[in-house]
């Protein structure tokens, strides 16, 4: 160390990047540990993270991952004559006929008209009633990036652009300059859990609830998801608690093993975790069994089952002692290199049904303003057709739904859909004009993550947005 002071300092030392994964995570980790170790009085001396919110209301975020890469320029489509003609030209045989597009009426796009995929009538009407907004051309970015920047290599680009595994990770971690195993949902919960007067928690059931098993998004440094099944709820040990003799015996054996006392710290730790999980499952299922389920009708699809289960889980929030929850559901099948129009259409139809029922269920529970649903997907798809489908691209469109959404608006800049446009870098791949960081940070702020903690969760956010700003990063939520 210190043995080469004489050599030049590089022009670009990437202050943001220098700290990178290890350091970035270390910061949050120590913050969390410090807060955990301190009592409330001592925490007041910790100037960086102040809880602004008493967390006495209920709020939930629902993250819908459209895994595989949703072709979102066939979800939200320009309908003005010249814009549509450009769209139809670039998409050729993957374009949706103009007369099939369902028109919507955004209030913030003067001179431009839009519509949605023919399979999304409910989304269209929820958009027009102000319950839904779109955010356009959002993607993974490390710093603001233009088309010339990409060509010249003068900005840092996300690792593994166009790669499923990397991009689906980045959308969940919001750390696209690195490959990390912790997601922003998990880190958000770590931070709220660590606040001296953070939201009430359940010792056995995480604030992060997954309908899709383990996932990066909900993995924090000190927390993981609580996984439930879209149809059956709590995922207990197979057969645990069932009535027939064989299961009764097994249940008794498991309880005996889990409730035994051990001196050895490894055995003790092993048993403690199983016990916590078991107790959480029992509590969850008992609360679910005792509650009257929501009466709103849901379709009988996987995704509608999942959203129904989310609605019924929100319904037992008080029994579980929850003031804040984050739900995650992954829905695959969007990697449509082939049969795009048919397959994506069917999937969007299932999304449309599920969102519609979920919105009605939240109205039934009187929680419309308290639950915000948002979509993510690893990338949009190439504007040009590969003959029968489309390939991996970059920036795309997402939707947000809920009473807190300032809806009937399209946020960001809907891009020109043409080759050689100012954003197009080949095959109809578009450079994003909004970063996923801005999108997520606004959701986190609505969720009452202190502004002072945002950079711990989104280390590159400062490249796009000042956390001291009076405005929200994008403005799609009433905070």
């Amino acid at each position, binding site marked *: *160390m210190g*043995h*080469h002071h004489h*050599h030049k300092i*590089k*022009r*670009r*030392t990437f202050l943001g*990047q*220098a700290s*990178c*994964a*290890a350091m970035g995570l270390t910061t949050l980790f120590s913050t969390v540990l410090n807060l955990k170790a301190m009592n409330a009085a001592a925490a007041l001396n910790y100037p960086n993270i102040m809880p602004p919110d008493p967390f006495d209301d209920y709020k939930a975020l629902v993250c819908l991952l459209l895994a595989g890469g949703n072709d979102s320029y066939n979800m939200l489509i320009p309908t003005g004559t010249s814009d549509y003609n450009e769209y139809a030209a670039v998409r050729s045989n993957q374009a949706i006929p103009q007369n099939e597009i369902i028109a919507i009426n955004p209030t913030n796009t003067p001179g431009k008209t839009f519509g949605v995929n023919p399979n999304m009538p409910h989304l269209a009407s929820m958009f027009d009633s102000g319950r839904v907004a779109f955010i356009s051309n959002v993607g993974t970015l490390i710093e603001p990036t233009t088309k010339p920047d990409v060509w*010249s*290599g003068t900005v840092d680009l996300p690792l*593994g652009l166009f*790669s499923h*595994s*990397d991009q689906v990770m980045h959308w969940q971690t919001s750390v696209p300059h690195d*490959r*990390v*195993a912790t997601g922003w949902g998990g880190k958000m919960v770590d931070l709220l859990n660590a606040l001296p007067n953070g939201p009430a928690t359940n010792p*056995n059931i*995480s604030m992060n609830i997954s309908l899709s*098993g*383990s996932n*990066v998004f909900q993995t924090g440094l*000190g927390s*993981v998801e*609580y*996984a439930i099944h879209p149809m059956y709820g709590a*995922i*207990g*040990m*197979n*057969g645990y608690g069932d009535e027939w*003799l*064989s299961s009764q*015996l*097994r249940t*008794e*054996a*498991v309880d*005996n*093993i889990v409730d*035994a*006392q*051990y*001196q050895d*710290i*490894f*055995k*003790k*730790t*092993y*048993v403690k*975790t*199983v016990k916590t999980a*078991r107790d*959480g499952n029992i509590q969850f299922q008992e609360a679910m069994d005792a509650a009257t389920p929501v009466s709103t009708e849901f379709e009988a699809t996987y995704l509608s089952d999942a959203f129904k289960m989310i609605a019924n889980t929100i319904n037992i929030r008080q029994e579980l002692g929850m003031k804040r929850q984050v739900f995650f559901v992954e829905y695959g099948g969007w990697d449509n290199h082939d049969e795009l129009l048919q397959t994506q259409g069917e999937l969007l139809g299932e999304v449309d049904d599920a969102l519609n029922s979920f919105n009605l269920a939240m109205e039934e529970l009187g929680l419309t303003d308290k639950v915000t649903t948002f979509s993510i997907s690893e990338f949009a798809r190439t504007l040009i057709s590969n003959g029968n489908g489309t390939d991996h691209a970059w920036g795309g469109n997402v939707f947000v739904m809920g009473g807190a959404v300032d809806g009937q608006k399209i946020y960001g800049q809907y891009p020109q859909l043409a080759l050689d446009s100012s954003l197009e870098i080949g095959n109809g791949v578009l450079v994003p004009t909004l970063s996923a960081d801005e999108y997520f940070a606004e959701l986190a702020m609505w969720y009452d993550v202190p502004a002072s903690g945002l950079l711990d969760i989104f280390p590159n956010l400062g490249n796009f947005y000042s956390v001291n700003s009076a405005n929200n990063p994008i403005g799609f939520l009433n905070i």
Partner: protein
Amino acid sequence: MKTIFKIFCLFLPLGLMGQAYTDYIGAGHSEGFTITASHSMTNAGAENSVNGKGMDSRYFSASRFLQQATMGASQQLIDDLMESGNDFESWIDDEFNKPISYTQPEMEAIWDEIVDYYVGQGQNAEDLFGPYRLHFEYAYWETLMTNDDHLRHKIANALSQILVVSSNSDLDGWAEALTGYYDMLLDNSFGNYRDLLEEVTLSIQMGYYLSHLNNAKENPEANTSPDENYAREIMQLFTIGLYELNPDGTQVLDGSGNPIPTYDQEDIQEFAKVFTGLGIGVLAYPNEWPYNPFFGLNVWAAKKDEPMIMYEDFHETEEKYLLNGSVLPANQPGMTDIDMALDNLFNHPNVGPFIGKLLIKRLVTSNPSPAYVNRVTNAFNDNGSGVRGDMQAVIKAILLDEEARSGEAMLTPYAGRAKEPLMKISSFARIMPLNVPNGRYWSQGWGFYNNTGQHILQSPTVFNFYLPDFQPIGDIADMDLTAPEFKLHNTSNAISSINQFWSIVNYWGGSIFSTWEEEALQSWVTVDWEAFLPYVNEPEILVNELDKLLTFGQLSDQTRDNIIPILHDTYWTWSDNWQEERIKAAMYYIMISPDFNTMK
């Protein structure tokens, strides 16, 4: 007393009966022991070991060693080792000299068989996707279940968790990238760490994974500088770690009691210059465009198991300032730069304690004493013949150390480790009597990975499945100890892991290994529960027998007392299927017990 004698007679391997051993724990090794066991039904309770009437301590000692030194003992391995009088060093020497069982030819044979089958069913060979990760997994399990080089695969597994590349990336699509990398680890498991470091650095798999493939020198016009990813990780994870270490693995502290960083951002930038100019070595499709590899060509075009080569035009030519005052002169050939930079890192005093401690954690215990680390560091620094980095010396130092071998460790609350998920399955599969109806051990790892969070070469990131210093909240963190493997034991996958065990031993067709292929290419390997029918009427004996195989005599009194009455109750008159259920339930209970899930 009568019962004990009965167990002894019935269940000790035939070759042991009636022999008098002088090497019981109780025969000279029990000094300082606290006798805590009290249950006369146990095999290896300390009391019985001491008085020589329980499980033979030699069996216990052999199986415990093999837990550390292999991906799971087999009955044959245990018997052979005992036959040798538990001569651990000779066993290790034999392993050093065994031929290597590679996964690549296995994978290629499997892929050929799969293609042949489906083409025979009328499909086009071009429509078959692969070989990809799935076929590496088939080959991995086939190899692990049939190999004879047990120690080598254990070390390769440990190394794969230090020098991490992962199929959680585009490597997923290329089986030969995964077999090639794993086989490279096999090749170097008993070699020199310096050679291993070089092969890893030049491997296209690592080049892709940590992005030094096609890493170009600084370009002032374009305002670009070299990628720093590999430069950072080779220091942080593969050689020296973040802080200066004493030979015993503890941190060197400055005058104010703070740890001293081993490198800073400028060092990373200097090393980033070293790792420039590496591009594709060999093309995957030599008869198609491009006909020659060139710098910048995407990894898709590369043969995924051939090392990268140097493209001098893209290698940084200016001087490079390495650690400890070393300077690489300007205008050297790129490979000379890399060679000298690797020497610079390899000779850093941190490498012994850093890598040594990681290997101890993978093989023996999560919390080695500084003295233990120090002894391993000494072996790393000098194998006795003046050679640094000799893996054989390091492996012997780790496995033969008194802290690894002493029975005392079992009574120390913080000794040992949590068992990693992969070992839970491999150790079960390698020791249990099995039905292998199709002669195949092919196994898809997807379900196992999803339930447990681990499968070979499938780490979520370069930081492995778990950080070496992970401290689960509670007793272990309170004592400032570590238990890395517990990162994979949270409220979510604690339950799904238990359900994974259930999927293996349930009464309705549970299987250990299965494929994603049609029936003709299935493996359907199941546990041969009928082998335990002779003991089914006496749960105490059934549990003892399973204890011997699965927990090596370490099944706790708590588990034993808690499950035996329930096994007695697992009985009904209306059919005979209680027998299968009792036997499999006993396996399941032991597999979910804390005793099976830890390694003392």
